[in-house]
């Protein structure tokens, strides 16, 4: 088994499941396909030798965020909340915009001719957690700390939103 074959297989699987997220009629199926897409992306991280990103991607996206998605969608009455079908004009406009974006992206990639990374300078340990930690805590310390402040603000905001005021209904 050659690595590039695994890559092709995984990429095909990723694209297929990502497509199914959009095409699936049932929102729950959409969410599950999205979870599967995240797994495929984690597989790509493994191929890039970035195990830490792989684990964090699964923990944060598949393990936490998508569970909450599933949670919210399960609370819906799916029979009552079916989104009405769009008119054919909207569908046409949507496909034109999406097609243009696709053409633009392909043109951009072809024009730029991204250089292949040289094998001499390639470091296999770049994606390891030790390297990542060293870079985060030295070179990118300020952005890292700023992000932690951002997280803190978001957390306080979430607690404020979820807090029951005095005299409000007790569910």
């Amino acid at each position, binding site marked *: *088994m050659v690595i590039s074959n695994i890559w092709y297989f995984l990429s095909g699987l990723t694209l297929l499941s990502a497509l199914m997220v959009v095409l699936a009629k*049932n929102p*729950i199926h959409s969410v*599950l396909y999205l*979870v599967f897409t995240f797994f495929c992306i984690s597989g790509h991280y493994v191929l890039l030798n970035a*195990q*830490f990103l*792989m*684990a*964090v991607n*699964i*923990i944060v996206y*598949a*393990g*936490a965020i998508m*569970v*909450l998605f*599933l*949670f919210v969608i*399960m*609370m819906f009455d799916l029979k009552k909340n079916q989104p009405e079908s769009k008119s054919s004009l909207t569908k046409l406009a949507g496909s034109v915009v999406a097609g243009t974006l696709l053409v633009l992206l392909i043109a951009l990639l072809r024009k730029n001719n991204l250089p292949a990374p040289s094998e001499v300078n390639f470091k296999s340990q770049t994606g*390891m*957690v*030790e390297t990542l930690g060293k870079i985060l805590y030295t070179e990118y310390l300020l952005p890292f700390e700023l992000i932690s402040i951002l997280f803190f603000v978001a957390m306080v905001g979430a607690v404020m939103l979820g807090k029951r005021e005095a005299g409000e209904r007790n569910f």
Partner: protein
Amino acid sequence: MDLLSDLFLAKAAFIGIVFAITLGIAAYSTYFERKIAAFMQDRIGPDRAGPFGILQPLADAVKMFMKEDFIPANSNKWLFIAGPCLSMLTALMTSAVVPFGDTVTIGGVTFDLQGIDVNIGILWVFGIVSLGVYGILIGGWASNNKYSLLGAIRAASQNISYELAMGLAIIAILLFTGSLSTKAIVEGQQNGHWNIFYQPLGFIIFLICAFAECNRTPFDLPECETELIGGYHTEYSSMKLGFYLFAEYINMFISGAVMATLYFGGYDYPGIDFVTAQFGNNIAVFVGMGALIGKALLFVFVFMWVRWTLPRFRYDQLMGLGWAGLIPLSMYNVVVTAFGILIGKPFTAGIVGVVLLILGLLIHDQLFVKKKIA
């Protein structure tokens, strides 16, 4: 990747053995659960199938397979089947990173008694634990039954809430080891330097979270006869129900193994040097593997002991304990551990941390909590 190389075959064989051990222990946990329950309630327990009822798990399995496999009419068929399968899958996947022993050399080939030695081992455990909720959530929703859905939602919110405290307890361990690899964590605890001595508070937090993650009493609220009929597996029957119940026992054993790895020195045991000198490396390593499984079984016993001794929580008490009790406590534990490493006395810091905590709670209790006058 060569499919027929020695390494690949050795890994495949090892993983097969670990699966067999896990499934066998899970099957016999059901028997011992009933025996221990019987002992605590002054009964005899199962004693009909074989001597001492030792064949009871086989009889149970046959019974499960023979029952009618029923799929409700308005359920989502594929997801209904996928639910128990996912539960089993996630339960079995965690054991891949548990180091069952050091390396052994058999016939000139060196084997590593660990499924995969990745340098993010503990994150793998954490990731799989966070996926464990999908099986319950999907099964509960696909049943198309409001009680199943409520049970599934309870399970999901409980697991998410207790994962946070669990992660914070693990961070204190990582401060000690400086590595995410489970192997490195175990190697840091060799010769009796077990993390439990340095992390008593962290261990208690982790143990409570493990109870909650396994949905065991006193945190078994996803299944509740009086409120939810049966909980998330109300609509399940036959071996699909068996898979859900089995996954719980596998989770118990695996979480016991993870706790032994993190806090009780993994495959370390007293007198390892003596055994190595007397009988050679291989025997010593296999005794170590037995020691790890023994420690894990001890935790399985603790799970059962607690189940048949303590009453269960109310749901708001469970959430309150998780968010307002365990998370601040584990943050305090991280700070104490970091301070201990900074001054170079982690052992003293761990003990002083617990003592200060108890003193603080006592003072708070005396000063601020109004007592009911009896």
